[in-house]
């Protein structure tokens, strides 16, 4: 392809299965009365925003596909099965049917390998897609009409430190950008995770009882607001600078690396992010945010 490919948008797309449960799509077996509207409406705004742009592929980085020996990529053309959340099986039993852009996935894999990263293509047709990938995709593009790429989250932050994780995600982001540019395709990136991630360890009898839903701890709320403020200012460098402290103080799901990967792939954007909304799910802090590609 002669045209240079491009990342047209990068989004923070949190994946609590509660959002799918609250939305009641036909693919999900459990049904709710309502719930988590602030976040679901934030996703509505994201969907409206993405309608303004043309794109070919959705690329998801999910902390619920956790690997330890390197970063893995979905490498089989299609997957159709049932995804059941191991923690919230009463909320999320989702029948999915998706197609994978294996060529682009392999290209990112190859470039990451050239940079010295340990990588692997996941080519087993029986593989089950994790709920972090599915929820982010369902909430962002419920039509399921675009091919996707799934990237695993390598456990460097637990094995070594957030600093090591950050270095690796910067490299993975660079490999992602180079492969997309070479592909000629227009791609939307999804970093599928929460911000603060301290959570309650019990849930109300009615899961969607919103009188019980609030941030777990004020300290993590302050941190979330700090991070969102930096996003709104387009101060990505400071986001990187404070990422280790933020993650440690709030047990943030940023430890999975998605946000760092995405911002690196987008060339560390200095433009402000559009904040579509913020809300809590069993006490965790979640933002739906969007950066447009330059």
């Amino acid at each position, binding site marked *: 392809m002669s045209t240079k490919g491009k990342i047209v948008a990068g989004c923070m797309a949190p994946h609590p299965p509660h959002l799918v449960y609250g939305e009641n799509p036909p693919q999900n077996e459990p049904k709710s009365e309502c719930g988590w509207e602030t976040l679901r409406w934030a996703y509505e705004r994201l969907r409206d925003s993405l309608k303004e742009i043309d794109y070919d592929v959705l690329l998801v980085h999910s902390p619920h*596909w*956790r*690997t*330890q*020996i*390197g970063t*893995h990529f979905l490498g089989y053309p299609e997957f159709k099965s*049932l995804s*059941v959340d*191991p*923690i*919230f*099986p*009463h909320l999320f*039993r989702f029948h999915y049917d998706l197609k994978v852009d294996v060529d682009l996935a392999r290209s990112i894999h190859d470039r990451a390998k050239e940079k010295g990263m*340990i990588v*692997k293509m*996941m*080519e*087993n047709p*029986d*593989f*089950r897609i*994790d709920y972090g990938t599915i929820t982010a995709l369902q909430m962002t593009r419920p039509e399921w009409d675009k091919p996707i790429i799934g990237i*695993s989250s390598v456990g460097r*932050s*637990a*094995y070594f430190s957030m600093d090591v994780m950050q270095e690796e995600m910067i490299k993975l982001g660079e490999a992602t950008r180079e492969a997309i540019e070479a592909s000629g395709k227009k791609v939307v990136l999804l970093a599928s995770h929460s911000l603060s991630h301290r*959570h309650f*360890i*019990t*849930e109300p009898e009615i899961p969607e009882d919103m009188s019980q839903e609030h941030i777990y701890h004020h300290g993590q709320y302050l941190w979330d607001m700090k991070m969102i403020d930096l996003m709104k200012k387009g101060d990505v460098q400071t986001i990187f600078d404070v990422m280790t402290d933020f993650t440690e103080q709030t*047990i943030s799901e940023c*430890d999975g690396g998605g946000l760092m990967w995405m911002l690196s792939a987008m060339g560390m954007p200095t433009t402000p992010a559009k904040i579509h909304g913020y809300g809590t799910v069993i006490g965790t802090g979640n933002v739906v945010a969007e950066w447009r590609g330059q």
Partner: protein
Amino acid sequence: MKDALKTPEYTEAHCKNVLKGFVLPGLPHPLLKPDGRPAWKKLRQAYDRVAKEVEALNPDLILIYSTYWASILGHQIQALPNPSWTLVDDEWHDLGSIPYEFSTDVEFAKAYNQANIERGLKSRLTAYEGFPIDTGSVVCLKLLDPNNKFKSCIVSSNIYSDRAEQIILGKGAKDALQRTNRKAVVISISSLSNRYSIVEPEKCEDAISSKKDEEWNQKFIEFLEKGRLEDVSQLSRQFHREARVTKKVVNYKPFWWLASVMGETNAYEGEVYEYQPVQGTGAALIGLTPTAQPAPDLEFDEDNVEVFQGDRNVLAGDQEESGDGFGRDEEPLQ
């Protein structure tokens, strides 16, 4: 391997419903690629020996506590009568797929859940078609009971639970075994050290990834070979700090649960079937048969607990507002 099947000898400290306890590894290599490495082959051969023992013991139930099944909302107990799926491991997908169908002891699962609740735990049954049964449990049941002859029950490992809660989870199992009159083989599925060698599998040497991990594994194996289950249980916090890599899992718990359900004592005959590395982690197959001849060198120093009322930070001496975790009211600081 010691050849003859040991007949359990029970003391007052033992749960007489437990025929034998095992600690078994859960990575899929011995099941899917036993010929891939000499180490995996040895693990498979050891698994096959354990399977023969289990068949000879002819239990009513195989009861599994799996560290590969992480829960956060209390404790989950598998209760679907015939869970079936084709499992592919997140990490080891290139080794192949694992089709399975198991037979759950639903009556026991319900009794276990009820016993947990009575002892103050948050506990629930999990009975959904397609629920992702963890790799450790699937590997274990496929290797131990390939013809699905025995009923099983699997309980999750709550990542935030600490010793008091884990001990209660074991006692809940003991209550349920007694109430349902089951004779069981009880199994903790866990690696010893869990530090992967971070290199491509084809470049990975058959060795434990760090010498410190190897020393701790050997220390545990030496104790277990002598039947010192309770000593190992009480060294779990230390082992967690020294040889486990997990930020979010509070502590190393498989021996707390195993000791609690079998009986918190060193009166066991231990047997180490095999110990090998898998991608740098420590994989051991260990059996423990109740005996009336306790091992020496008792090192018990932690309290026993009957009802869960919160954790007590044993090492720091902190006390929870609601009590000290052992049913006593908090005493005011002087």
